[in-house]
């Protein structure tokens, strides 16, 4: 009995709190901001209420029976055990309800599926453990990693998630889209299956390695919308969020211009101070290395080698550069790191006290020249 009370209290709350999505006790599905997400929300509410009414009818009958048809009240058991009419009725009524639900549901599926007539396309590639975005129309391309504050808060023993704004739901480079345009997304993955979900847009889509999936959205109002990877993709599955910023067209155009200009800038090879090298190196490390080699450089015994006191890390510099750029069968190639980033990273991993290394050198961007170490990559 207590059960149903709880249940009904819960469901009433659920129904009465459509605005409470961001409160401390969120209850119901987010309505979202797109037409599709609103249709999905309406469907969700429709079927929820149907379930509530069926529940009230069935549990009501059952609990009436439990209160009144009990032996302690001297109720004598009837001996009926079938009634064809009743059985036909309770087969046909659910069938009709299902047919009634299937109609709006079918419309919504067709709507979700329709990627025709899109005005721009963005390719989304899931990688362990970040997202890679590529604007197919203008050539903008960037990676989107969990922000540094969240990284530190969940990795450091003294990290405090409560002090981080949008903990685990913030990224360094958000995906920027214009409002009021039909945007087509194409999804794929580089390694394992990921899934791209922003609840406010109303859907998620799997990113499968070697295959392309499509989906679309039309964002009617500017704002920041957050989501996460929803297909288990390995150790840092919980740490690859999605942030979409929708901008008015002029703001978006300005962003495109700025981003393209920045993308075409030459790498700045001028010397950096030790502090700059170390802080820049730390941030490159947090984005690219920390998932495997860990925040203190300890690695994971038996899986990922430690950087602390590793002969390869603290040894001669050129083979190390080659190693990082070429990767091995177990470590991805980091040829994507620009010379200034690589220089900072090298300085950091060789000298960071938190990693337990102190070679005492500084590697400047100028000194980076690709030297590939062909011998026996897998030895270590």
């Amino acid at each position: 009995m207590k059960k149903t009370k709880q249940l009904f209290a819960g469901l009433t709350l659920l129904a009465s709190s459509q605005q409470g999505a961001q409160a401390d006790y969120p209850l119901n599905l987010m309505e979202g901001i797109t037409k599709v997400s609103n249709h999905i929300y309406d469907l969700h509410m429709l079927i929820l209420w149907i379930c509530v009414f069926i529940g009230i009818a069935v549990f009501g009958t059952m609990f009436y029976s439990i209160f009144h048809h009990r032996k302690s009240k001297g109720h004598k058991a009837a001996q009926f055990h079938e009634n064809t009419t009743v059985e036909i009725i309770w087969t046909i009524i659910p069938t009709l309800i299902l047919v009634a639900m299937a109609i709006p549901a079918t419309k919504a599926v067709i709507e979700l599926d329709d990627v025709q007539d899109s005005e721009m396309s963005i390719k989304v590639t899931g990688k362990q453990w970040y997202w890679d975005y590529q604007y197919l129309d203008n050539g903008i391309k960037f990676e989107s990693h969990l922000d540094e504050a969240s990284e530190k808060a969940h990795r450091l023993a003294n990290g405090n998630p409560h002090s981080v704004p949008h903990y685990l739901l913030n990224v360094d480079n958000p995906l920027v889209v214009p409002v009021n345009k039909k945007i087509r997304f194409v999804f794929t993955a580089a390694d394992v299956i990921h899934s791209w979900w922003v609840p406010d847009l109303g859907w998620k889509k799997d990113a499968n390695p070697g295959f392309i999936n499509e989906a679309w959205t039309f964002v009617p109002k500017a704002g920041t919308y957050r989501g996460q990877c929803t297909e288990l993709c390995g150790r840092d599955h919980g740490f690859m969020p999605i942030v979409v910023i929708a901008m008015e067209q002029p703001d978006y155009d300005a962003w495109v211009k700025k981003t393209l200009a920045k993308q075409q800038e030459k790498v700045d090879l001028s010397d950096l101070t030790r502090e700059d090298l170390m802080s820049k190196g730390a941030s490159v490390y947090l984005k690219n290395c920390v998932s495997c080699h860990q925040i203190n450089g300890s690695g994971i015994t038996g899986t990922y080698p430690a950087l602390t006191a590793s002969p390869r890390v603290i040894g001669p510099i050129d083979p190390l550069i080659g190693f990082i750029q070429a990767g091995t069968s177990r470590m991805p190639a980091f040829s994507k790191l620009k010379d200034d980033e690589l220089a900072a990273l090298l300085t950091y991993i060789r000298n960071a006290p938190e990693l337990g290394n102190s070679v005492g050198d500084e590697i400047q961007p100028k000194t980076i020249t690709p030297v590939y170490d062909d011998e026996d990559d897998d030895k270590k």
Partner: protein
Amino acid sequence: MSAVVAEHDHHHDDHDHGPAKGILRWIITTNHKDIGTLYLLFALAMFFVGGSMAMIIRAELFEPGMQFVDPQFFNSMTTMHALVMVFGAVMPAFVGLANWMIPMMIGAPDMALPRMNNMSFWLLVAGVLMLASTLFMEGGAPAGGWTLYPPLVLQTGKAFPFAVFSVHLLGISSIMGAINIIATILNMRAPAMTLMKMPLFVWTWLITGFLLIAIMPVFAGAVTMLLTDKFFHTSFFDAAGGGDPVLYQHIFWFFGHPEVYVMILPTFGVASTIIPVFARKPLFGYSSMVYATASIAFLSFIVWAHHMFTVGMPLAGELYFMYATMLIAIPTGVKVFNWTATMWKGSMTFETPMLFSIAFVVLFTLGGFTGLMMSIAPVDFQYHDTYFIVAHFHYTLVPASIFILMAAGYYWLPKWTGHMYNEKIGQLHFWLSTISVNILFFPQHFLGLAGMPRRIPDYAIQFADWNMISSIGGFIFGASQLLFLYIVVDTIRGGTGEKVTDEVWEDAHKHGLEWTLPSPVPYHTFTTPPTVIPTEHI
């Protein structure tokens, strides 16, 4: 309505075919009751092993931030918790019940294939031990989820081939168990026990047996393809070699969807057995129950891709799998209505087995409702892979399958042991479990709807409060199960000391053949088949 055949009474003094002495009795036994006991005790042990893993998961999720475990170990825990609970606890527990009860319910002296019965139990132990051993291997236990999706699962360390071989062993064990149960039911019924007079537990297991034989080889095939992809350079699931990772998901869920019904159909059978006894009424709609079970089993084979709505299917696929899945609500609804109608105008009493059965009907129906919600493909684009689905399948497994296993324990323990359990502690166990299971799983609906993905070791701050409540519910639920352990041990060792009658529950002998046997049941029963069978359950 029924009559008791006195034949079995003579066997009290017949010690010629008693059990072997000592530990060897349990190793070499071919007696269906001994093997049933082994299965049940093993399942209970695994319930606590899998439960401990759940406690680790809930402890890590108690508050935001990483407190206790490494994310990879967390993933291993979610993976192993599921595998241990599915293959080590729930399935073996129902096989244990089948071993104990099916021969006694159909008037057979034992299972049809007693030696295979022994072998299938010990293969199960070997399989689960091999699976558990992966926890201690370099690279850790499998951490790609119990669905073992490639390419992620191929990143498993040394544990990978062991996990695959353990699935093979578990599969062989299940298939042998299923063959045995089908052979027993089809060949060893007492002459008067026609198919449409069988207790529903027997019917549901007959259907489950066919499900198992159909699906376990599919799963074995899928993991074998993983194995060759990993070690022999095949490319079944690797796009670079012309394969497709989504192919695995189709194969897996062709196994996986019937598999979840393997865990729920016998549950329906036990509920249909217990509720009429405590309502003192015949089961409402016996034949529609049988047909509904068969329909659910059939549908389970043609709905698999509803686990994959967001994987990128063509429109026609989305629509077909949505419609087919919605259909399941009809036979499932019939079952719930039938149980309600069975209680209607009964003369109910509320001993622990009945309490657990009523909680099952209510809470399973809740899980069914969320299942119906998720069958709507477009809405599933929001629900998929969130805590909403976690709440859904835990409602259909914990307060459904597990509760009914508890109910079955309370219901049949007096028959098995000849001792009565302590009703007060039993009811305490029921109330603690029922309240805490809802504190544990109900908030997970809210978390999923609010946007919390499943299988994450850490979460954003707005999910903190419900997670803490859920964890508290989890700890209470976990601790409450120690009461069950206490009751089982206590009952075996004498319970309340009260002498239980042969029928144990009022007029139970009208409902099932097992209640016409003495309590405790002799080592051998129905060496000659009974000539009259009870018909109250029909």
